[in-house]
C-alpha cells in the first residue's frame, strides 16, 4: 500500500507492505540511515524519532501508521548546515563517544526542552531513561542537555532584549 509521510519537512511517499516498520521505511526506502536499530525489541531507544513532535520508537511502529503525519529524524535537526543547539550541546560537552545512541538521545532531548525549557538534572535523567547509552555513563549527556537549555535561554533573552 502507499504511504505518505512528511519527513523532516518534506512530503515523501513510498509503496510498502503493511508489515514494514517505520524505521525500515526511513533507513531502507528513504535512505535516512541516521536513525539506528539497536535492540530491535523496544528497549534501547536508538531508533527514536519524533512523530508530530513526540518521541516514539520507530522499531515499534508500522510505517503505515505514520500516514499523513510528521516525522523528524536526526537528519532534520541541522538547518542549512548549521547545527541545532542540541547538537552543539552534545559537541561542546562530549555527550557522545561511539555515537550509536546519539540520534535517539538528540531527539528525546529536543522534545524534552520544548516541553520543559529549564529541566532539573533529575528531569533530564527521567526524560532520557528510555534511551540507553553503552559508552558515556550518561553524565556528559546530562551536561549537554543543560548546556543547550542555558544556550536556548540566553538566545531567547537576547532576542527578547533586542
Amino acid at each position, binding site marked *: 500500500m502507499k504511504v505518505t509521510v512528511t519527513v523532516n519537512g518534506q512530503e515523501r511517499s513510498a509503496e510498502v507492505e503493511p*508489515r514494514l516498520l517505520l524505521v525500515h521505511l526511513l533507513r531502507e526506502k528513504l535512505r535516512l540511515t541516521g536513525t539506528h536499530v539497536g535492540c530491535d525489541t*523496544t528497549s534501547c531507544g536508538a531508533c527514536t524519532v519524533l512523530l508530530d513532535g513526540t518521541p516514539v*520508537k520507530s522499531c*515499534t511502529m508500522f510505517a*503505515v501508521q505514520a500516514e499523513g503525519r510528521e516525522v523528524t529524524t536526526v537528519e532534520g535537526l541541522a538547518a542549512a548546515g548549521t547545527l541545532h543547539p542540541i547538537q552543539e550541546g552534545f559537541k561542546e560537552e562530549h555527550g557522545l563517544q561511539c555515537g550509536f545512541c546519539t540520534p535517539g538521545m538528540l531527539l*528525546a532531548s529536543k522534545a524534552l526542552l520544548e516541553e520543559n525549557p529549564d529541566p532539573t538534572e533529575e528531569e533530564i535523567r527521567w526524560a532520557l531513561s*528510555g534511551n540507553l547509552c553503552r559508552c558515556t555513563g550518561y553524565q556528559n549527556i546530562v551536561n549537554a542537555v543543560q548546556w543547550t537549555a542555558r544556550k536556548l535561554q540566553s538566545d531567547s533573552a537576547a532576542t527578547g532584549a533586542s
Partner: protein
Amino acid sequence: MYPASFEYVAPATLEEALETLGRYEDDAKVLAGGQSLIPLMKLRFAAPRAVVDINRLPGLDTLAAGDGGLRIGALVRHKTCEKSELLGGRWGTLGAAAPLISDPIIRNLGTVCGSLAHADPQGDWGSALLAMDAEVVARGPDGSRTIPLPELFEGPFVTSLAPTEIITEARVPDPGPAAGGTYLKLERKVGDFATVGVAVHLAMDDGRVGKAGIALTAVGPTNLRATAAEEALAGSDLSDEVIAEAARLAAEAAQPYSDTRGTADYKRTVVRVFTERGLRTVREGMA
C-alpha cells in the same frame, strides 16, 4: 525482525472497526499503542491475518471524572495519565502507577485499555485498576457490555473479551473525596517489568476504612486481589497492627514463582513490605 504479512485496516469509525473485526472472525487484532502487540508480532508469537488500527477513531481519548466516576478512553496513553493533574487525591493509585510503566518513550504510545486487553500478569495498570474496582466497557457486534476486571482477567495474556470486541473505555467508580492510594513497584531498571508491584487504595468513612483495595502485580497468573487483606482493613482504624496484619495477609495471597528477578520467598517478602509501606503512605497522606 519482520512480522508475518497481514492486512492493515485503519477505520474511521467504531462501527467500521467492529465490522472489520467481524469479517476476519477470530483472526484480526486491534492495534492501540502497539507497544505489546508489535513486539509480539516481530517475534511471531502473534501473526494475525489483519490488524485493525483504532488510533484514528474519534472520541476515544477522554480522561475525565464525572458523575459516573472516572472514564479512561481506549486511546488514553500512559503519558496522558502520568501528566494528568486529575489523577491525585482519590485517584492517587492510578497517578502513582502511571510514571512507573515501561519507559518515557513507550509511555507516549502505550494505552491503559491496551494494557488491560493484553492481560500481562506483570502489567501495572491491571493491579492499580483492580484495587479501584474498575470495569471495562466492551463493544461487540451485539452491542455493549461492561466487564469487571476480575472477570476480564482469565489467565496470563488471556481475557474474556471476544476477538470481535473492542474495549472502548475503562470506568472507575468514584470512591468519594476521603479516599487515596498509591502504587509501589520494584523494578531492576527503568523499562523493566515489575519484580513485584502492589496497588493500595483506601476509601475512608467517618475516620474508619470504608473500603480497601489491595492488588498485586507479577505474583500470580493474573493481577491478583488480596481479598483477605482488604477484609482485614475494612471497618478498621488503620492502626499499625491492622496494617501489619493486612500486609501479612497480602503476602499470603501472593502466588510468586522464582525466576531471574528473584526467588518466590523474596517476592513474597516484598509484597508484605510494600503493602505495609503503601498503607502507611496513604494513611499519612490523608491525615
